[in-house]
C-alpha cells in the first residue's frame, strides 16, 4: 500500500506536465475566441444594445414575428437559452456553491 502511494506521488510531476502540455493549445484556442466573443460590452456599445432591444420590441409589436423561419426561431431560442444559463451561473457565484444553498 505504501509502495503504491509512493509510486503515485513520484508520478505526479509527470502527470502535471502532461496536463499542461495537453491543455495549452486548447486554452489558447479558447482564449483566441473568447477575447472577441465573450468580452463584456464596452460603454460605447451599451446604447446600441438598448436601441437593438427597442427594435426587437417594435418588431414584436408590428407582427413581424410571424415571418421568422423555423431555423431563425431555433437559433434565437438557443441564444436565449444561453443567456438564461449565464443567469444561473451568476446565481451559483452569488450563493457560493454549485448545488443548493449552503445554509
Amino acid at each position, binding site marked *: 500500500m505504501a509502495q503504491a502511494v509512493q509510486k503515485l506521488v513520484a508520478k505526479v510531476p509527470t502527470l502535471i506536465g502532461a496536463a499542461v502540455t495537453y491543455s495549452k493549445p486548447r486554452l489558447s*484556442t479558447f482564449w*483566441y*475566441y473568447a*477575447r*472577441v*466573443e465573450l*468580452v*463584456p*460590452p464596452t460603454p460605447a*456599445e*451599451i446604447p*446600441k*444594445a*438598448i436601441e*437593438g*432591444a427597442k427594435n*426587437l420590441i417594435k418588431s414584436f409589436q408590428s407582427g413581424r414575428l410571424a415571418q421568422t423561419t423555423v431555423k431563425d426561431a431555433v437559433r434565437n431560442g438557443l*441564444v436565449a437559452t*444561453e*443567456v*438564461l444559463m*449565464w*443567469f*444561473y*451561473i*451568476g*446565481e*451559483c*457565484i*452569488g*450563493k*457560493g456553491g454549485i448545488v443548493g*444553498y*449552503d*445554509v
Partner: protein
Amino acid sequence: MVPPVAVSPVIKTARWSALLIGVFYGKQRFDYLKPIAEEERRTEEAEKKLREEQERIYKQLSEDNSDTILQ
C-alpha cells in the same frame, strides 16, 4: 480556424447583465434563507432532545414492567 464572430451588442449586454443579476439574486436568496435554516436547526435540536427524553422514559418504563413472574 474559423475567425471569431462579432457578437451583437444586444446579446453581449444581455449575457453580462444576466450574470450580474444572477449574482445579486443568489446572494439575496442566500441571505434570506440563512436565518430560516438556523431557526429550523434550533427547533430541530430542541424537539430532538424532547423526543430522546420521552424515549428514555418509555424504555425505562418498559424495562420496569418486563420483570413479571410470567417469564
